[in-house]
């Protein structure tokens, strides 16, 4: 997994509550055998004016020009700002995969759905919970400045605005450690590589028939 230390990027505002996983990546794309390449279908129904199909050429599809991610400079945004209960719906990991594949590294909202929240950390995506009031202020900031950028400093747990002012945020210490070091669950387990190997050696002595050549 990519490590996350500090990140500076354009903020895309999506002024909606309850953005669900189906909106993030519609059902028809879940049949895919891949976990990458979902970026072009992120928010598919909002982004295009026709129906998205798994094997369509997305570059040839009619765009909804009003949708934020279709407009410069937001087509290059990497911080998503939304309202409460972001990521509700299914438990599948396709939603963070799609956000990550598009280029998002941070999602800011007053609250998140549990499973989605957990899944983000496995995919180098940082979900930040801020109070409704602060989120409200951020929406105002973004409305006032086209292409507003924010810097997210995970080590120091703060968001830095362009005027230098800071917003502190909370993050679970263990998850922070994993993100800072680019450790997904697998990376984390592999930190115990030595223990796994010595277990394996011992087991090979006791029960050699379990190990095929």
């Amino acid at each position, binding site marked *: 997994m990519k490590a996350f230390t500090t990140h500076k990027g354009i903020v895309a505002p999506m002024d909606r509550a309850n953005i669900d996983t189906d909106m993030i990546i519609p059902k028809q794309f879940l049949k895919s055998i891949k976990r990458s390449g979902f970026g072009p279908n992120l928010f598919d129904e909002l982004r295009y004016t026709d129906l998205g199909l798994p094997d369509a050429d997305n570059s040839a599809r009619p765009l909804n020009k009003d949708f934020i991610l279709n407009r410069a400079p937001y087509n290059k945004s990497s911080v998503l700002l939304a309202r409460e209960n972001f990521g509700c719906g299914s438990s599948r990991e396709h939603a963070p995969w799609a956000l990550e594949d598009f280029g998002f590294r941070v999602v800011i909202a007053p609250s998140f759905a549990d499973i989605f929240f957990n899944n983000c950390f496995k995919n180098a995506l940082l979900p930040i919970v801020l109070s409704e009031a602060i989120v409200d202020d951020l929406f105002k900031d973004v409305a006032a400045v086209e292409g507003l950028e924010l810097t997210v400093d995970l080590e120091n747990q703060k968001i830095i605005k362009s005027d230098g002012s800071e917003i502190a945020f909370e993050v679970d210490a263990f998850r922070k450690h994993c993100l800072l070091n680019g450790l997904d669950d697998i990376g984390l387990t*592999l930190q*115990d590589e030595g223990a796994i190997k010595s277990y394996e050696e011992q087991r090979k002595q*006791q029960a050699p*028939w379990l190990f*095929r050549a």
Partner: protein
Amino acid sequence: MAGFTLYDKLWAQHVVKEREDGTALIYIDRQLLHEVTSPQAFEGLRLAGRKLWSVPANLATPDHNVPTTLTERQAGIEGIEDPVSRIQVQTLDDNCDEFGVEEFKMNDVRQGIVHVVGPEQGATLPGMTVVCGDSHTATHGAFAALAHGIGTSEVEHVMATQCLIQRKMKNLLIKVEGELGQAITGKDVVLHVIGVIGTAGGNGYAMEFGGSAIRSMSMEGRMTMCNMAIEAGARVGMVAFDRITQDYVQGRPFAPTQDQWEGAVSNWANLVSDDDAVFDKVVEVNAADIIPQVTWGTSPEMVTTIDGFVPKVEDGVTDEHKEAIQRAHKYMGFEGGEAITDIQLDRVFIGSCTNSRIEDLRAAAAVAKGGKVANTLKQALVVPGSGLVKAQAEAEGLHTIFTDAGFEWREPGCSMCLAMNADKLGSGEHCASTSNRNFEGRQGYGGRTHLVSPAMAAAAAIAGHFVDVRHFNLEGGAK
């Protein structure tokens, strides 16, 4: 100090490291792979530039999506009509080739349903931890192994680390004492148990089946029971090691070699719950009380006996229960009060990882022998669990018994168990099925599933409705 349960022992033998938060890193001896839940795991490895921790610990075969008709099968992967199925089967082949994983490909005689193939090859051994991206992995627990289903990200985790992060479960003992009646099988036992404890009864527990009735049961019957532990909410089902386990395993391709055999057997002898082991919960069942089981509703706990009736709404004990009965009535097309033997069937399915092994096919054939599938039925399917089961059945002439009686004899795969390929129920159709789930839509949109044993399914096919197999003319001489 109290003794240990089988589960306690299996757990302790596989702990690599205890973690502060109460979870543990558990070593996994065997991972079985199939085409539906593995592609994203392989891709994850590829994206992260990781390798398999242990290539030979993995074994793969396509099962959920493969077509079961000979013509579609013979045309190879390109011949698979459904594009999504075709891509998934092809991707499994490509991934296994790339990562060097041993795979029994679609037209290999060793191909079949993962949960049939693992034990058949001896790839499932006593004392192992076995995982697969499929909830019926509990099947392998019949070998005194610790086996359970996992999700795709866990599949990738096992691929890369040979470990899983787990929390220990509680111990549940299902004790079946006494002798099972004539024609009563593991399927009837497990359906009865689910009826008693409910689909949530095993939540959070590792479930061991014990007692004298289990001790005298064949490995195949034990696998059928463990297979359905998950339908009672338990991710793990297990049976202690004994002579029956030993005899089944001996001589299989992946089993210990001759020079390792003695050592293995003496090691396995300990894979039983100690006499003074303490279980968190014990459920006692009298074997003699069990008569053929049939599910009437849309959950495996909605089960009754062949001489029973579809319950009425007022039979519900709580409001919630009444509502559940009402909903199931609506879906199944019942009013309540119908005799089980009056349920007219449209299709019969004998197969799935629950009941597609040679003993299951023998039991069904013994009933079908000399009979004819009722002409009111649209279809009666027999789908062996693996290519080797199919070959064995053909060597015994079972396939001609089936085809003479009007059953279709198919190629191995999951088939009508879950309707991921062309084998499906039509809306509103009633099916006697030897599979494990009767959920709404499981066997096809609007399809109405009744779970039964293989012999009961065969008898129902001949009669056109459910009948008590114990009083059915058993010409073939099943015992």
